[in-house]
């Protein structure tokens, strides 16, 4: 259950999901591969311009991004071509991606549209070189079964993934083009989800069908969830929830955030008009000429000025106990690249002295119930920044909490941008409308995955896995991986253990991930050389610890399995040394200690038994 104490807010919860799956087999509108090396070919720069959006009006998100007027720098690698550079019109839609989206649509009981109509969704933050994302609805109006009833599917869409952000700051964003154009299947549910556990179950059920179709990409960020949640104060869209297990934390965080904001609003709504009228902002740079605050000094050093304003009624609500109005504003100004924000709940502090704040309080005429905000920023930004601050204050005090937020890895969320307006799409005329015939649909019915329970029992039967292991494989979207690796290395139980247990442990231990192509190659080698489990695990260990390729590792001396003679030699030596008793229970561990090389434990035991009898 959620931590929230308030039955009122909790009872009004509505959750919807948008899940994005990358499709693995080449990009959506060109024939570049999905995977690439890290080789950088060249870079180029673009400045996005938002002129007009659909129906003649620019939406808030677009305006917001344009106000930032960022320069975007793109790093082009080997899996990019003129299409990704926005230097050539899109080619035909990739057939495999379309097929994957159609199969997912059928599996989710949707009505597939007769005509696929690609649109341009305007995105001016630089994450697309064109300034828009190509997207089309493939199917509408379906459902997925869960233990707590059907969850309706609003739509299944096919779209291109955006460029990957590498660095952000100083008015410049750097993006890699490796991800740009990878097909994404987006599945959106209606807000039928009852609670956070139901959300996880629904995501798993949907994910099962997509991955079971065999097209889903299996890398760290290949599946991304957006959680839409409402507690009656407007829809909050939380982007970038990387793991299913984070969904409950994110929802719980949002509930307590909204509860705290509601308390703040109840205490302070009488000040609403104050914020609507845009309070006075003072330039207080001269008061801090001799300050000890490093942040303020470095800001003044680059020509920024220090501004202050009073926030009526916000004393003790900026940061104390469960109140965090300060973070609401800090998130906002960070989007403008502003790092120096202080408020009275945390002052004196950060090198700002009691004397300095006393002068500041009297300058801003702070009363006990008020808070004071101190911001260092470029003079050109101050007007728009304070306008944004006051309008956000007014919006929050009115409990209009509609916005787009982003999920951090710890389950907390931060303000990303206002909710995008509606009118930000127009037709992609470079891509012809695709007619989907009944014949096509009919032919694909055979490819629709079996229901989850049937797949579990099939895996368990065909691979000899326990029902529990088969469930874990299926519900963590690893069936395709298991199928593929087992076809290369014909020991499905070892493969299952490796992907469920050994690999995650090694990845955690060395803090790096084993990429899919390397993993596939490793199992191909293991199959060719007929490695035992211990050799396989040792090879993976060497790959992860040294960042090596499977072929390089395969030739390592350390990998060669101990022969029976070598085992015997070690065991005889162990028995001869008289430090403590060697017995059946510790012999394997002791051999391991003696050698870095892999060996067959069963064989070692056999040798031990034969040697110790003598």
């Amino acid at each position, binding site marked *: 259950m959620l931590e929230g104490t308030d039955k009122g807010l909790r009872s009004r919860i509505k959750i919807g999901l948008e899940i994005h799956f990358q499709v693995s087999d080449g990009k959506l509108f060109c024939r570049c591969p999905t995977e690439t090396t890290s080789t950088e070919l060249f870079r180029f720069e673009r400045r996005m311009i938002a*002129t007009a959006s659909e129906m003649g009006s620019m939406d808030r998100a677009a305006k917001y991004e344009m106000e930032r007027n960022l320069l975007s720098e793109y790093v082009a690698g080997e899996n990019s071509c003129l299409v990704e550079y926005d230097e050539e019109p899109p080619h035909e839609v990739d057939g495999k991606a379309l097929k994957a989206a159609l199969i997912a649509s059928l599996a989710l009981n949707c009505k597939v549209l007769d005509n696929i109509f690609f649109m341009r969704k305007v995105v001016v933050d630089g994450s697309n070189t064109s*300034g828009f994302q190509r997207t089309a609805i493939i199917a509408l109006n379906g459902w997925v079964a869960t233990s707590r009833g059907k969850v309706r599917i609003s739509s299944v869409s096919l779209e291109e993934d955006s460029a990957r952000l590498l660095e952000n700051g100083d008015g410049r964003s750097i993006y890699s083009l490796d991800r740009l154009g990878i097909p994404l299947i987006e599945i959106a549910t209606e807000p039928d989800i009852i609670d956070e556990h139901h959300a996880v179950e629904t995501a798993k059920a949907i994910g099962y069908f997509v991955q079971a179709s065999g097209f889903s990409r299996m890398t760290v960020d290949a599946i991304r969830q957006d959680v839409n949640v409402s507690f009656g104060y407007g829809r909050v869209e939380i982007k970038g929830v990387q793991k299913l297990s984070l969904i409950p934390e994110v929802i719980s965080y949002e509930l307590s955030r909204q509860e705290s904001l509601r308390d703040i609003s109840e205490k302070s709504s009488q000040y609403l008009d104050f914020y609507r009228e845009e309070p006075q902002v003072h330039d207080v740079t001269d008061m801090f000429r001799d300050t000890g605050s490093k942040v303020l000094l470095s800001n003044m050093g680059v020509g920024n000025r220090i501004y202050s304003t009073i926030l009526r009624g916000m004393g003790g609500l900026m940061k104390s106990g469960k109140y965090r109005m300060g973070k609401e504003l800090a998130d906002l100004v960070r989007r403008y690249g502003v790092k120096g924000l202080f408020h009275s709940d945390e002052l004196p502090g950060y090198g700002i002295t009691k004397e300095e704040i006393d002068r500041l309080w009297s300058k801003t005429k702070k009363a006990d119930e008020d808070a004071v905000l101190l911001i260092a920023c470029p003079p050109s930004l101050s007007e728009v920044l304070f306008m944004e601050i006051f309008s956000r204050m007014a919006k929050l005090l009115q409990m209009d909490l509609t916005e787009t937020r982003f999920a951090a890895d710890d389950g907390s969320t931060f303000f990303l941008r206002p909710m995008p307006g509606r009118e930000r799409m127009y037709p992609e005329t470079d891509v012809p409308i695709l007619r989907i015939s009944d014949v096509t649909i009919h032919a694909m019915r055979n490819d629709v995955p079996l229901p989850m329970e049937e797949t579990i029992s099939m895996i368990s039967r065909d691979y000899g896995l326990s029902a529990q292991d088969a469930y874990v494989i299926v519900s963590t979207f690893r069936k395709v991986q298991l199928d593929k690796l087992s076809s290369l290395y014909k020991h499905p139980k070892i493969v299952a253990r490796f992907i469920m247990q050994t690999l995650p442990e090694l990845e955690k231990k060395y803090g790096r991930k084993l990429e899919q192509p390397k993993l596939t190659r490793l199992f191909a080698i293991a199959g060719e050389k007929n490695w035992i489990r211990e050799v396989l695990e040792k090879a993976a260990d060497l790959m992860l610890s040294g960042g090596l390729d499977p072929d390089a590792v395969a030739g390592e001396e350390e990998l060669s399995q101990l022969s029976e003679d070598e085992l015997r030699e070690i065991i005889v030596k162990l028995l001869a040394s008289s430090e403590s008793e060697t017995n059946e229970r510790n012999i394997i561990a002791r051999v391991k200690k003696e050698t870095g090389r892999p060996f067959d434990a069963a064989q070692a035991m056999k040798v031990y038994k034969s040697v110790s009898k003598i």
Partner: protein
Amino acid sequence: MVDWTDVVFGSAIKFSYSGMEYEGIFIHCDNDMVTVKLSNGYNLALQKDQVKLVKIIRKGSENGESAAQQKSAKNRVGSVGKKHVSLLATGGTIASKVDYKTGAVSPSEDIGFISDRVKDVEVSSETIDNILSENITPEKWIYMAGKIRDSLNRSDGCVVFHGTDTMSYSASAISFMFSDQTGPIVFVGSQRSSDRPSSDAFMNAEGAIHMATTDFGEVGIAMHGNLSDESISMHRAVRSRKMHTSRRDAFRSIGESEVGTYSQGSVRLTLPYRRTGVKNDIKPKLDPSVSMIYFYPSLSVEDFEGMIAKKKAVIIMGTGLGHVSHSLIPSITRATKEGTKILMTSQCLYGSVNLNVYSTGRDLVRAGIIPLRNMLPEVALVKAMYVLGNYAEEQFEEMMKENLRGEIIEREQALVFGGAD
């Protein structure tokens, strides 16, 4: 009972599809397809027999959007100290606007929005034509030349918005027609329409406008210099060529480097150029009786003769140093004897034709062919129209061989053999 024929573009409607009701904006309906825009922005193209109109919520206006979008051409009031540049729109991608509902791109009446970002130059704009540049004709060049002269008479420089496909032809034609000019004439186009946030139209126009404030007394073409929005290159019109179908930096100077660049508010002119003069002197005549023949192996005598028949001049794009098959030489001899001017350029684009190296070349000279050194074929075409239109026949060969506007490179240097950068 409401019917699709009752609905006008832009109306808010409720419709049912696959058992669900949706609200949206009506876009279009034909015999078997209905296009609607959902409230989330997506357009759906639905088979008519599967979708049912439930009701019209609010009637739209047939042309409300375009009326609202099209403001009249605006002229900013001049202020002291700023240069004044006039924009002339002839059509093409750069002067187009998209209809955000249908996606259709059409010429825009108001091109001022493209140059709104330029604050340090006074800009006035006028739409003089609305064509896709593949439909350009010599008559239109003559009309264009008159409009450019008029605008130079009341401003410091002129920028011409033009489709990129034939921009080099048009700019070269204008270049020949102006024997003197009081301000720069800068042609500019775009490879990405202005509806895209990534459009090159704005930066190209900004560069062109600034180029038009200099003392460059020639005709140039301003476009992206590379894939980045960092600098705009200006090419001499008579040495420029569109060398890529889709890239922003499609235009290249052939055989010489660019004349100048614009970056971060300032222009640098790096090649020698003609300075602006004291009057706008044009010879507004072009004789379109010129054809251009791309020689290829297997080109038949019959086809060749068909293409030179009744022409006053013929530009051949020969192979290599300027060759065509021996089988065509009798036809060439006959035509030149009858007074047809036949001129030789090269398919190589880079480098000069030279008819003295091989026997075929020498035979072609004997057949009466006129070699045009390193003049670009398209430039030779419009130059021939210009020379035929304004000079006596006896002067033709001499004028064609004379370097009038920099169309011939006197000393070709090693480092400007492009394409590989």
